[in-house]
């Protein structure tokens, strides 16, 4: 599952750096990350980053205090959203933005990095600016806020529309399951839904591959389904030649498919056919 480890390392540095490249990222944002570490260990490894609307944040439920928030029945750890600044209040330790995305209002707190060099600091966001926020949902005295890891200004407003559509798609994924024609039986532990659009072509035989079957394995499976063959299936070298990929890659792909029970070996270990039942 290492592929899906949206772990702690995902948070501050990468987005901070990205924001910087855009000329945004008002501060390095490293402090926000360390503030959040106490809760980090228990959810480490299943950390996800979910696009949400502010209405979803306000309506997220918390089964009991200190537990993770849930949206559409799925635990949320890190969230991201886009919204417009309604008001800004600067305190000694943090800056609090009231953000409005048209669906609701939420406070976003960004801790001030006292070590930051004032000479290199980015311009502060203004009221009315649109921001992209990455952070964690917190509850303090029954009042919710988002502790921001990273904040950057929106410069291309298509991102506002993009975000709202992405949040809708993810909401529908959790409430209605994967889209028609995509995968059934995906182990929905969060974070994997982004893959679902990729491999929809591999449904030729009616059997659907889970999202984790990717790349060459998917191609091998498609070929085995579509290629005319006798009941002995196809030999590895034959597959490699038809797909134009090295046979060691085909072997790896075959191992994955064999392990998942999508194909089986026929006359020898190197000849495979689609397992149909």
């Amino acid at each position, binding site marked *: 599952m290492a592929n899906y480890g949206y772990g702690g390392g995902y948070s501050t540095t990468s987005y901070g750096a990205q924001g910087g490249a855009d000329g945004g990222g008002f501060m390095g944002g490293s402090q926000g990350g360390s503030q959040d570490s106490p809760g980090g260990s228990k959810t480490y490894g299943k950390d996800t980053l979910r696009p*949400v*609307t502010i*209405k*979803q944040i306000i309506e997220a439920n918390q089964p009991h205090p200190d537990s993770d928030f849930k949206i559409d029945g799925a635990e949320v750890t890190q969230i991201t959203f886009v919204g*417009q600044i309604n008001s800004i209040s600067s305190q000694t330790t943090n800056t609090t933005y009231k953000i*409005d995305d*048209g*669906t*609701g*209002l939420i406070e976003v707190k960004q801790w001030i990095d006292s070590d930051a060099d004032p000479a290199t600091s980015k311009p502060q966001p203004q009221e*009315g600016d*649109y921001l992209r926020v990455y952070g964690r949902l917190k509850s303090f005295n029954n009042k919710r806020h988002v502790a921001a890891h990273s904040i950057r200004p929106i410069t*291309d*407003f*298509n991102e506002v*529309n*993009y975000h*709202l*559509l992405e*949040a*809708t798609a993810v*909401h*529908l994924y959790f409430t209605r399951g994967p889209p028609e024609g995509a995968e059934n039986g995906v182990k929905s532990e969060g974070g994997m839904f982004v893959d679902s659009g990729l491999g929809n072509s591999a449904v030729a035989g009616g059997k659907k591959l889970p999202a984790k079957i990717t790349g060459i394995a998917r191609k091998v499976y498609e070929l085995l389904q579509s290629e005319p063959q006798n009941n002995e299936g196809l030999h590895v070298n034959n597959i490699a030649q038809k797909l134009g990929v090295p046979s060691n890659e085909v072997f790896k792909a075959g191992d994955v498919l064999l392990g998942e029970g999508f194909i089986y070996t026929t006359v020898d270990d190197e000849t495979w056919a689609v397992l149909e039942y």
Partner: protein
Amino acid sequence: MADPLSTPRLTSPHLEHFTSRTIRLVGRVTQLRGETATLDSDGVVTAHLNRDAHLTVGNMVEVVGKVNSDLSVRVLRATDWGRDVDFEAVKAVVDATHRYKEIFYGEP
């Protein structure tokens, strides 16, 4: 202020269902005359501007405003979105807003 903290996104055809509510609307500025602007948002919309609004003809603008009974919009805040915003995406968002309103807005 009780609920409508939400400002539902819509286009011109939805205005009649949202009179006296505060809404969000994206459109292209087609005309500017003093305190009044004409926007194209899947239909013509008349916007009554406030003093802070700085619109540019030809640009897309997002307005937050209240829908009057004559279906014009009294602008509370206007944000210039520039020229390069895909209006198809805007329409898709409006469609999603009303189709899946559970994540976008509540009834007043």
